[in-house]
């Protein structure tokens, strides 16, 4: 195990994979408290499912890399969901259900038309070993953007999460910030898909904050807990996957989910300790 871990700090190719995992889990750890507090978990899932159509569209257009169409399609679907929510009386879960099923079906048809079943697995569950230099730059940029979002607008997103009407009454352009959040989430999801796949990327945006919020007593505790759990879970999952010869994306998610259940077990003990203190 020690050898496996040390390789990630000495081999250039493995160091790049480690840096990719740190970037993707840092971004998701930063955004996760906002996603969970704003109850946008299913939203990011729907956007993740739409990325397959973006990939297939890239192939159809003969682009060298599917990344631009994947990100573009994810953001268009995200904005479409937000607009349907704002301008129709449809329930959010209905809109998300239609968007998720529709974009996945179209995506799969386009993909099958282009490549049959080839490489589909890597889009569904990710293949972090295939990350290239451009991917790493994209993941790093996404991590920086996520941090910037929280640094600049964190308080506004939190106020909207506590109470939308109160945020409106305090003069916040709620719809504008919702669209901004949606675009950033669309970007984070489509970039994250490269690492852990479209079926699992949503877990990165939900599990860290779902774990930290059951242990934290403050927003700051929830935020830093989410970032720590996400990055630590990502790195642990990467090393474990390598050690056991298993796929990285599902292992990262499995480690995060294990942490979630451990937190659920610790929670009553923590509460009792706080009451006694």
């Amino acid at each position, binding site marked *: 195990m020690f050898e496996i871990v040390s390789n990630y700090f000495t081999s250039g190719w493995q160091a790049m994979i480690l840096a990719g995992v740190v970037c993707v889990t840092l971004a998701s750890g930063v955004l996760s408290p906002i996603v969970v507090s704003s109850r946008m978990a299913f939203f990011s899932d729907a956007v993740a499912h739409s990325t397959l159509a973006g990939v297939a569209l890239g192939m159809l257009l003969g682009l060298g890399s599917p990344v631009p169409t994947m990100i573009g399609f994810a953001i268009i679907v995200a904005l479409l969901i937000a607009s349907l929510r704002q301008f129709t009386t449809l329930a959010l879960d209905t809109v998300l259900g239609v968007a998720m099923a529709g974009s996945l079906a179209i995506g799969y048809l386009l993909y099958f038309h282009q490549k049959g079943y080839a490489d589909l697995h890597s889009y569904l569950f990710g293949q972090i070993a295939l990350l290239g230099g451009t991917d790493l730059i994209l993941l790093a940029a996404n991590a920086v953007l996520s941090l910037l979002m929280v640094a600049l607008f964190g308080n506004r997103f*939190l106020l909207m*999460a*506590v*109470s939308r009407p*109160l945020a409106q*009454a305090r003069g916040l352009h709620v719809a504008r910030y919702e669209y901004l959040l949606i675009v950033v989430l669309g970007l984070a999801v489509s970039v994250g898909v490269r690492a852990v796949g479209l079926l699992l990327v949503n877990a990165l945006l939900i599990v860290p904050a779902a774990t930290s919020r059951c242990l*934290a007593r*403050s*927003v*700051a505790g929830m935020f830093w807990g989410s970032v720590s759990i996400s990055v630590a879970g990502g790195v642990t999952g990467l090393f474990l996957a390598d050690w056991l010869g298993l796929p990285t994306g599902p292992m990262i998610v499995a480690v995060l989910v294990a942490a979630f259940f451990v937190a659920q077990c610790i929670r009553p003990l923590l509460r009792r300790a706080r009451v006694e203190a």
Partner: protein
Amino acid sequence: MDAKPLLQLENVTVRAGNKALIENVSFDIQRGELAALIGPNGAGKTTLLRAILNTIRYEGTVRINGRVGYVPQRLQYDRTMPMNVLEFLALNLQRLPVVFGVSRAIKRRVLDLLEQVGAARLARADLGGLSGGELQRVLLAGALHNDPELLLLDEPAAGVDIQGEATFHDLIQRQVKERNAAVVLVSHDLSVVSDLTSKVICLNRTVHCVGSAKDLLTAETIAHVFGGHKAVYGHHHH
């Protein structure tokens, strides 16, 4: 008293499709006035406050000559969210995201706001664990963050026990007296309206009457606005 009204509404109409939720609402509020907005359910009271706050589309004119504070009707929020009162109030007061901590200056400001509503001990309390009365005080403290001259309170005592309600009303009266502010209070409790307020605005889609509580809270007016099912009974807070 300043001759220029703090709040001036002229023919304010809010529509949902073809239906008018409120229609041609006009009235003024001066500094030092504690006005009650009364009317049956569905009369458009919350809609009117939202028009004043400019959070919905309306026709007509709303003029506000001062800063506004707002306390919403029964705040619906996720009570499992780990957020303490200090962080909640700091959301409006500091640019730095509260996830990076609350600065000393903002802590002092939050404590000052909480002291104004007699709730300094709640600074470290979980937002989700507050009682109805405590939450209303915290929301009032939040509404005072910009030293408002006009306070809009949407049934602030709903879900609060009698003692909490009396304390809350004392707080509101103090705001009016000490700061020469004005308050517009939406209430269903006509006895509270009669005890507390200097002006009553009867709303049922449109303004039916504006005047002093003593003059307006008669069986005749109430029957006209509410449909004849209400009456005013005095009650005393100890």
